[in-house]
């Protein structure tokens, strides 16, 4: 049996440009969510977690020409560059695959005035992956996952399986989405956006806060390339569907339960007390958080400490599963539980064990979950070797 390890990672978000910077900001209780009246993004002022594009353009200008790449392509290239720096692999050999995770890619190219020098062909998600592939001289044709809010976890699951079955030695998983009027107006039309910073699982939660960001996880079956101590493995993962409604989660949580159950079986978890903590999806909509609480109850996990990281990053869509997995991996590395920013009083019917403050304790394993439009759910299990 092939083991799959986390070789390295990177997060670029409102809270920083490395995983460490992002993790330290979470640990310090800093949020990336700000109040914005940027009319290019929304007709009405809104809360969102926004990237500092001046910082990104300065950084990117040192390695390539800013005018030739879109915002998302810059994030993906910078994020992968940092993750590759932490390990030694030859990206040009045929043992390495790139998987890109995104929901809307370069959707801002639909607007004529945006990026006039950029070919509209880059609206195609595969073209974004091709551009990143060419930049890093990767030998294999990249894969792209576009599966709403579970895209990131589905990409990690896909990459893990491709390594386990021996098709590749290393898989670079990079996911990102940027905030556009397209996406913000859509969530506004659903009346899903919170008028205040989101409050996951709280009794007064009012909806989602959106965010933009990018995350990279490099998976490998070769532990000798890993430089950090107490190597972390991906022990399992699974996806599922609610079969309930295209824009509303299940009332029972059975879909997410199936993904969790399949993941824990693959990870050979016999007793739930082997699970250190759960990083839930926790978008702070009324229905999503309630569904997740019910799924945790079905899985017998209501006693396990749980957080949602949306209060730090907002909902970063195609990046969410990756960014939140990385913070969870750094929680394991640092033996530190990160609380749910914005949460005060339980507002779901199951009494789940919300993490409310930073807590240092020995942590060995973590379950990460996600759910999204189209009834999709996914779960991944991480463990120290």
């Amino acid at each position: 049996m092939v083991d799959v390890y986390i070789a390295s990672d990177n997060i670029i978000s409102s809270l920083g440009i490395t995983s460490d910077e992002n993790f330290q900001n979470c640990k310090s209780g800093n949020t990336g969510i700000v109040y914005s009246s940027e009319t290019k993004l929304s007709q009405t002022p809104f809360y969102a977690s926004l990237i500092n594009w001046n910082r990104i353009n300065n950084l990117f200008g040192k390695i390539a020409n800013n005018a030739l790449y879109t915002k998302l392509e810059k994030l993906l290239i910078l994020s992968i560059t940092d993750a590759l720096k932490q390990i030694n692999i030859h990206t040009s050999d045929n043992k390495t695959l790139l998987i890109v995770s995104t929901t809307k890619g370069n959707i801002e190219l639909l607007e004529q005035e945006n990026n006039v020098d950029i070919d509209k062909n880059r609206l195609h998600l595969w073209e974004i992956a091709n551009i990143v592939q060419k930049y890093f001289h990767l030998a294999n044709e990249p894969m792209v996952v576009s599966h709403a809010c579970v895209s990131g976890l589905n990409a990690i699951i896909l990459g893990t399986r491709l390594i386990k079955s021996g098709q590749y030695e290393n898989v670079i998983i990079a996911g990102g989405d940027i905030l556009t009027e397209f996406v913000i107006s859509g969530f506004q039309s659903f009346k899903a956006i919170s008028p205040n910073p989101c409050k996951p699982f709280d009794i007064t939660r009012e909806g989602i806060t959106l965010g933009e960001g990018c995350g990279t996880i490099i998976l490998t079956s070769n532990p000798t390339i890993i430089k950090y101590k107490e190597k972390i493995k991906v022990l399992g993962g699974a996806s599922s569907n609610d079969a309930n409604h295209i824009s509303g989660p299940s009332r029972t949580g059975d879909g997410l339960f199936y993904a969790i159950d399949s993941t824990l079986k693959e990870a050979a978890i016999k007793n739930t007390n082997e699970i250190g903590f759960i990083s839930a999806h926790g978008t702070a909509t009324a229905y999503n958080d309630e569904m997740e609480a019910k799924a945790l109850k079905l899985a017998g996990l209501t006693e396990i400490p749980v957080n949602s990281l949306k209060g730090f990053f907002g909902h970063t869509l195609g990046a969410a599963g990756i960014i939140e997995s990385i913070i969870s991996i750094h929680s394991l590395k640092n033996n530190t539980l990160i609380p749910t920013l914005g949460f005060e009083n339980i507002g779901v019917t199951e009494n789940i064990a919300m993490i409310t403050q930073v807590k240092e304790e020995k942590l060995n394993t973590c379950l990460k979950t996600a759910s999204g439009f189209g009834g999709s759910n996914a779960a991944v299990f991480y463990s120290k070797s």
Partner: protein
Amino acid sequence: MKKQNYISNHCIIRNNKVLLNGEMLFSMENPLSYNDFIKTAFRSQQITYPKFFKMDNLSKLGFLTSELVLKSSKIKEYKENEIAVIIFNSSSSLDTDMDYYETIKDKANYFPNPSLFVYTLPNIMIGEICIRNGFKGENMLLISQQFNSIALTETVNNILNNGKAKCCIAGWVEYKRNTDNTFFQNPFYDSFLCLIEKNENDNKVNAEFNIENINKIYKS
């Protein structure tokens, strides 16, 4: 660990034709539009499902292909969480993205519509298939420039061979708006779904699920 899986049914919808297991099930000469074709094809199959008419172009295509692939299958013998749906395409949901963008483009005529916005995600097509049939197993929507039989077989085999599902509806569902400024703005659509099972079956198709067979059927 190489294990053999089997194709028990396959359906292709393209060029105003519907082929089930290689046999012509429906065809239409000179339909007025894609919508005319897909709705007429749907009605010709005596399927009762009013939600079909609310779906976007991509979902209609994937949905009808899945209905036909599942017809005369043994899908009911599986549990809800044993059935996976894995679909690839090239253009994601760009057709509906363009429609949705029209609703926000003009600030004086700004009417973002949630029932349109939800279809700006290609995996909604998988959601529609799962809702219709009560499927709760593995889901994955992947994008590739062209039909890629290697990626398709790898992805599906990794699910079936690791006990993540016992059968899988998988293939390629592509709908691309013609954005050229030509008079006849016909879209390009190309849908190909298979039902893949772990065991051999008594269907006449009963082909081994491998790259060669997938290419042969796709190109037929």
